């Protein structure tokens, strides 16, 4: 008799962490298919785990992108900057300076290695947890911070929650609060690139939880039908707020395995292995750029922090989980690899940390000089009525005028001015 199956995380608060459910492959063992191989001839890469860095911190196997030490040092710098930035911003939120924050702690390689493996003209459609891509593409921290502060220099003009950045000049799409919507949009962007005979490709990221949304299917399907030049990333960080990846359908089969069913290559990769993420992204980018169509990449990683500053993960998972995560920490692993290669040292690392921290602190100082949500100069409130449409329709003009009246009336009636 059938009984309803309910996927279970291996552990709950109080339990000893247990990651035996994570299917691992040793570094270097997964062969790298030809860039133009047919999807159906490479379905195994959807089930294994592409890894380049081995336990002795050496880079091994066909997926090794063979990067110069300098490139790796740049990657390490971007990852570390991402982490320090996240850390500081989290703390400013705790201090009440910003209203909300979401960290990417533990997932820095996912964003940084991928963005580095792509070209500057490639268009990125991220979720809220790939802040590393802004570091790679060189967005000034102050600009990110002003968005977090919703201050007078906020790129979103006060209209979005913190973290919902955008950067057209840097070819990074606007982040949506609605999950997964960017996934098929990236495919449409890539279809347009193909229609227009451009050779830029698109890349997009969603969480494994978000792959349950309809737009996941829309993206895969249209990409498969039109062989769109796009890289579709699923960041499987094991958790979607409080629900385990099994709830999103990760129990029977990997998320990468969804690709081959649509005729799209699926690759499952160690998301905490900078070199593996780089290698896989590079392969997929080359495939897309040479007319081979889309690739679905599952990046296996772990959400080391809370979902957001509104979340408390100790309610639903063991506190010390991350220490036992079998794929380690992406920053540590790249650092150790560089050290093993003799191209880095603990001392250099400490200096880099200090340098980047100072940079973040200085940027913050500058950013707050432009105001904050509840302090200092504020954005002009009439910005609220702009950009709904290109032009300014009558109803919004009238409403904007009424707001001015309301503010007068507030004073008259002894009502508080509209700020919290």
């Amino acid at each position, binding site marked *: 008799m059938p009984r309803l199956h309910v996927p279970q995380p291996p552990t709950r608060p109080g339990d000893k962490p247990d990651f035996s459910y994570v299917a691992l492959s040793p570094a270097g063992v997964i062969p790298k298919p030809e860039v133009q191989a047919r999807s159906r001839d490479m379905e195994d890469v959807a089930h294994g785990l592409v890894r380049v860095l081995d336990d002795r911190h050496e880079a091994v196997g066909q997926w090794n992108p063979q990067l110069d030490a300098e490139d790796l040092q740049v990657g390490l710098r971007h990852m570390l900057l991402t982490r320090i930035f996240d850390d500081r911003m989290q703390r400013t939120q705790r201090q009440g300076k910003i209203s909300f924050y979401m960290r990417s702690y533990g997932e820095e390689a996912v964003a940084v290695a991928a963005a580095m493996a792509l070209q500057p003209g490639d*268009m990125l459609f991220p979720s809220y947890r790939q802040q590393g891509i802004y570091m790679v593409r060189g967005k000034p921290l102050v600009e990110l911070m002003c968005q977090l502060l919703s201050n007078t220099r906020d790129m979103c003009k006060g209209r979005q929650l913190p973290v919902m950045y*955008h950067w057209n000049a840097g070819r990074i799409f606007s982040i949506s609060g*609605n999950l997964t*919507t960017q996934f*098929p949009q990236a495919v*449409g*962007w890539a*279809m347009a690139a193909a229609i*227009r005979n451009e050779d830029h490709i698109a890349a997009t990221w969603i969480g494994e939880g978000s792959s349950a949304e309809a737009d996941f299917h829309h993206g895969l399907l*249209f990409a498969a039908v039109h062989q769109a030049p796009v890289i579709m990333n699923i960041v499987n960080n094991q958790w979607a707020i409080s629900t385990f990846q099994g709830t999103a359908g990760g129990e029977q089969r990997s998320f990468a395995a969804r690709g081959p069913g649509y005729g799209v290559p699926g690759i499952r990769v160690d998301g905490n292995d900078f070199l593996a993420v780089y290698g896989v992204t590079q392969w997929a980018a080359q495939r897309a750029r040479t007319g081979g169509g889309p690739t679905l990449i599952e990046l296996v990683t772990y959400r080391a922090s809370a979902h957001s500053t509104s979340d408390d993960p100790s309610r639903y998972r063991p506190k010390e989980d991350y220490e036992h995560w079998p794929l380690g920490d992406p920053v540590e692993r790249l650092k150790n690899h560089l050290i093993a290669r003799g191209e880095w040292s603990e001392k250099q690392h400490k200096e880099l940390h200090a340098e980047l921290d100072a940079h973040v602190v200085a940027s913050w100082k500058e950013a707050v000089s432009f105001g904050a949500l509840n302090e200092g100069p504020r954005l002009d409130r009439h910005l609220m009525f702009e950009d709904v449409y290109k032009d300014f329709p009558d109803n919004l003009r009238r409403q904007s005028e009424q707001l001015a009246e309301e503010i007068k009336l507030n004073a008259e009636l002894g009502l508080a001015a509209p700020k919290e």
Partner: protein
Amino acid sequence: MAQMNMIQALNSAMDVTMARDPSVVVMGEDVGYFGGVFRVTDGLQRKYGEHRVLDSPISEGGIVATAIGMAVNGLKPVAEIQFADYIYPAVDQIASELARLRYRSAGDFTSPVVIRAPCGGGIRGGQTHSQSPEAIFTHICGVKVVMPSNPYDAKGLLIAAIEDEDPIIFFEPKRIYNGPFDGDPNKPAVPWSTHPKGDVPEGHYKVPIGKSEIVRPGGAVTIVTYGTMVYVCEAAARKLNIDAEIIDVRTMSPLDIDPICSSVKKTGRCVIAHEATRFCGFGAELSASIQEECFWYLEAPIQRVAGWDTPYPHAFEWEYFPGQARVALALRAAMGDEQQ
């Protein structure tokens, strides 16, 4: 000038803009090789190729999502939803993305997609081929909502929509694709060639988005309507011999309310008519807005004519459709000046 029905006029609008602007692309279910189930895209793929006229998978959500991405990348997609009744799977991409992108990115990104969708009843399509869901989209700020009522406007508005920098939902009242319809199904069909608005320039012209039109001047009562109901209202007013001023709204959102209010201030009476379900339909907004502006001029309550608050039932097509009798009842109520 040529004689065109609405299908030809819409087709011509796409043809003209595709010829002028290589970034215009057409997509939708069966729109390519086949030319669309209503033949509105007939011949476009042959002329502009398979890369500009795409047969899409049956996936309204995917169509709108990919159209947004294409527009972000500089194309100008004109996406057909085969029937307005099938637009619901795309509501998230429309409400959360298409309508919001300019705002949330402070103008850094835009996606000026045009979504065409045949709407309305009177074709025995039953509850899933007859809907008029415009009010769901007029409540969503950031998208414009348009519905033409004749071939001339259809072409001019569609060209304007394609050249507009904002996203637009373009509803096409399919009952009048081939000719105006006065609500009486027993009368022989009338082709557009008998109607002045069937004269359509072959080249490029625009009818402005955001402007209503007085299609019949009059002094006794203002009828505010759009789509197929323009003709039903005309016929009913004629039948009752009422000197009605009939305004074709044409753009529901953003609404150009001032000319409508000027007319109501002049006549002191108002009837609003649409095919969509009455409750929370677009007529509610019209009524509320007019009442706010024109209260002191009104000599009788504003009346609404609409579809019933039920799905559109196949066997009761003409009992459901807001025909001349329903309009006539409202006109009589609006013309009465005493408390009933």
